[in-house]
């Protein structure tokens, strides 16, 4: 084999190595994106589930067994669970702001483990994005869902207000 042929062979080897390396990188990145998308679907449903679960609770600890006619009668900051409610055990919660500083880790789902965090604070209806430092008829919940298996962080929020129509 002459030098030219050898050079061709070496060139082929080089191209093949580079191609395979690049392809592998791309395939791995692709796998990661597909995995993130799949886990993202589940993460969104977990965030929505937390919203639904919290929305079944009373608006405030003081409205569980009472009507409240003024904001001053609602729970003041810091919001969170009462002493008789167990940390991160939503089955023991009885009102919406018990989910403030809440964290739950799903370890038993088929695809991956997820961590769900939530924060609750008061907002005004005219500016529902901003936290206010006083009591109002509206509470906003911010939820974050993360997983070690997922690069993305899913964020969701909702507003829950005090009303009952009977």
């Amino acid at each position, binding site marked *: 084999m002459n030098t030219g042929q050898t050079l061709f062979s070496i060139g082929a080897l080089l191209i093949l190595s580079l191609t395979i390396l690049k392809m592998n990188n791309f395939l791995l990145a692709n796998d990661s994106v597909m995995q993130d998308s799949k886990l993202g679907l589940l993460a969104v449903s977990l965030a929505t589930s937390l919203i*639904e679960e919290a929305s079944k609770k009373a608006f405030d600890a003081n409205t569980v067994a009472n009507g409240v006619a003024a904001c001053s009668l609602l729970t003041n900051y810091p919001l969170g669970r009462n002493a008789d409610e167990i940390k991160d055990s939503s089955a023991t919660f009885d009102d919406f702001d018990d989910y403030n500083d809440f964290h739950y880790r799903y370890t038993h789902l088929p695809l991956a483990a997820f961590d769900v965090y939530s924060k609750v604070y008061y907002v005004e209806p005219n500016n529902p994005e901003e936290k206010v430092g006083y009591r109002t008829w509206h509470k906003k919940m911010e939820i974050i869902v993360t997983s070690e298996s997922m690069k993305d962080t899913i964020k969701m929020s909702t507003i829950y207000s005090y009303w009952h129509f009977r």
Partner: protein
Amino acid sequence: MGFTTILDILGSVIIGGVLMSIAFRFSDSITEKTYNNSGELTIQQNLAISAQIIEYDFRKIGYCADWTLIPDPMKAILYADSSEIKFYSDIDSDGNVDSVHYYLGPISELSSTGNPRDRLLYRVLNGEQHKSANLGITQFRLVYFDALGDTINPPIGHNGGIVSIEINLTVENTEAYDQKYSKAFWRQIRMVSRNLRNR
């Protein structure tokens, strides 16, 4: 010419062979990846569309544009089981009460697919001819909760006190490369239609 030449030829054959085998092996891997990724995309799309349809319907349990036709929405759920539910609603919001029936078909219906676990999820509207599409659904499991948050054991008849439902949905490929089925899972704990809090 001579021994060196033979060595050259031998060497180039070996190297060429190795290169070829690498290339062919990689090509095989690409084929598998292409197949799997297409399948993965399909199951994700199937999962998303199934979830959206189920959420669209379940949010309307007990709803009717003419509310006097379903005056007591808690009676809208006619029958509920672990993989089946039938309820009244007004899906198209035209003021007429519709009945919606979700149920899983038997595994034997899809014996022609490679996946031994996939089943048809039927959505029957107003008792019409059932329609289904093979979306690779392998699990459609419903868990029911009452007003106090306790689970209600199915089967549950009419007026069973269902206040919320946990919906578990798993979708897999109908066919897979080398029997390696990919799966996607979705869970929703729904407040089963806010209409069930009315009246």
